[in-house]
């Protein structure tokens, strides 16, 4: 990852669990105690789909995957776009930064209500 890119920030909680995205309170009911930059790790594809009926402002087709990172023995899952349609369950992928995953304002959600950049996954 480039030093200029924001981190793919997951939250770590006192019980050792990690979630992406982070939450004010973790699965064990406690507030986070730190963060992990998932862009420094690779992940394994748990499942994937290619969606052909996409909403306004979304690329078509849109290949998506749920992937699982192994952060020092702690599993962390994430969902995101895949850079190719050539993907299979069990593939190893790495996060790659994209400035705009979807056109802000094209859909129903207020453009200022959330961020639109993030990390796609590309096969290693």
């Amino acid at each position, binding site marked *: 990852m480039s030093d200029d890119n924001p981190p793919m920030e997951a939250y770590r909680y006192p019980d050792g669990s990690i979630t992406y*995205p982070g939450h004010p309170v973790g699965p064990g009911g406690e507030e986070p105690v730190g963060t992990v930059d998932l862009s420094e790790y690779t992940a394994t594809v748990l499942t994937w789909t290619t969606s052909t009926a996409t909403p306004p402002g979304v690329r078509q087709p849109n290949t998506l995957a749920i992937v699982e990172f192994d952060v020092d023995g702690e599993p962390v899952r994430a969902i995101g776009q895949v850079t190719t349609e050539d993907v299979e369950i069990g593939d190893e992928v790495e996060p790659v930064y994209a400035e705009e*995953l979807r056109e802000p304002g094209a859909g129903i959600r207020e453009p200022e209500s959330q961020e639109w950049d993030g990390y796609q996954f590309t096969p290693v």
Partner: protein
Amino acid sequence: MDRVAIIGASMTQFGQRDAWIRELLAEAGQAALADANVSPDEVEHLYVSNMASGEFEGQTGVPNALAHDLAAMPAYTARIDQTSSSGGAGVYAAWQSVASGASDMTMLVGGEKMTHRSTAEATDVIASLTHPAEYKHGVTLPSFAGLTARLYLDTYDAPRESLGKVAVKNHKNGLDNPHAQFRKEVDLDTVLDSPIVADPLRLYDFCPITDGSAALVFCPESVAREYTDDYAVISGIGGATDTHVVHERADPTTMGGVVNSSEIAYEMADLEPDDVDVAELHDMFTILEFLQSEDLGFFEKGEGWKAVEEGVTDRDGELPINTSGGLKSKGHPLGASGVAQVYEIYKQLIGDAGKRQVEADVGLACNVGGFGNCVTTTIMESR
């Protein structure tokens, strides 16, 4: 304790309708009151299940509009929004209003007006329930279904054809439902050759976009006997949530909200899954019928697909599922669907389901919001 009875019900024609949300709700509400032989001024609580009339149509304040249109003032009114499970949540609210003693006559009307929007726009309105981390990637409810279906087929070594057979079964059932959006049989080849929507799922694995409304009238069982001999009772009901972020679930092929809500409902009813004679499940996507049939305890995990293959869930099978045609054939007007599920079970239990009639003393409806994010399970029995 006085049980909560349903003494009247109605549903409008589902499909592409000229009517707008106010008119759809009034049509179903008026018909349900007539069916129950209840006058509008007897209604003490009036609930409207609706996900997004403001987003779809620019019409808010629908409960008050309905109360006025039906001359049901001064009934207490509230809108129940729990996305696709708004109907089930409305059943819960209506049951609660009667069971608590707050109301002796409650009406629930669920409805949605959607078809004036393009498929892309309607998909986006529904996808707005997702977490920002999902929404920015263009994640939609159909894409969750594709992701889960692939994992299910891979994990349990289920054939792709088994999903198609859910669509075939439910379309066949819908043929005998005069209110269904699609009264047309489809064969397996048609399902498997239809265009891909979210690989491996295809067009016929998905429910349509639908306009429609359904309504139910609730009262204590002691009051019900004053109106009719044909009523059904709610013997168990449970509501539960699962994670908002879908990929954070330990097992993506298990819907925790279904497991938890049904456990509550079974315990309240003092019944087991084996006691259920007929069920309406939330088959917004074919894969959801497998997941719910397993998470409700009807079949072992990973075995739901075999039940469909073996005809167990056919109308003449051991456990008929979606005799109404399900969301798949009947249609899915978001806020109406959970109400229409209970409408079908009510009709089955009072013996008024026409050609769809099966032998049933116990029925179950499972209404799912999001991708299992919010769930209401309702168990009903004949009187």
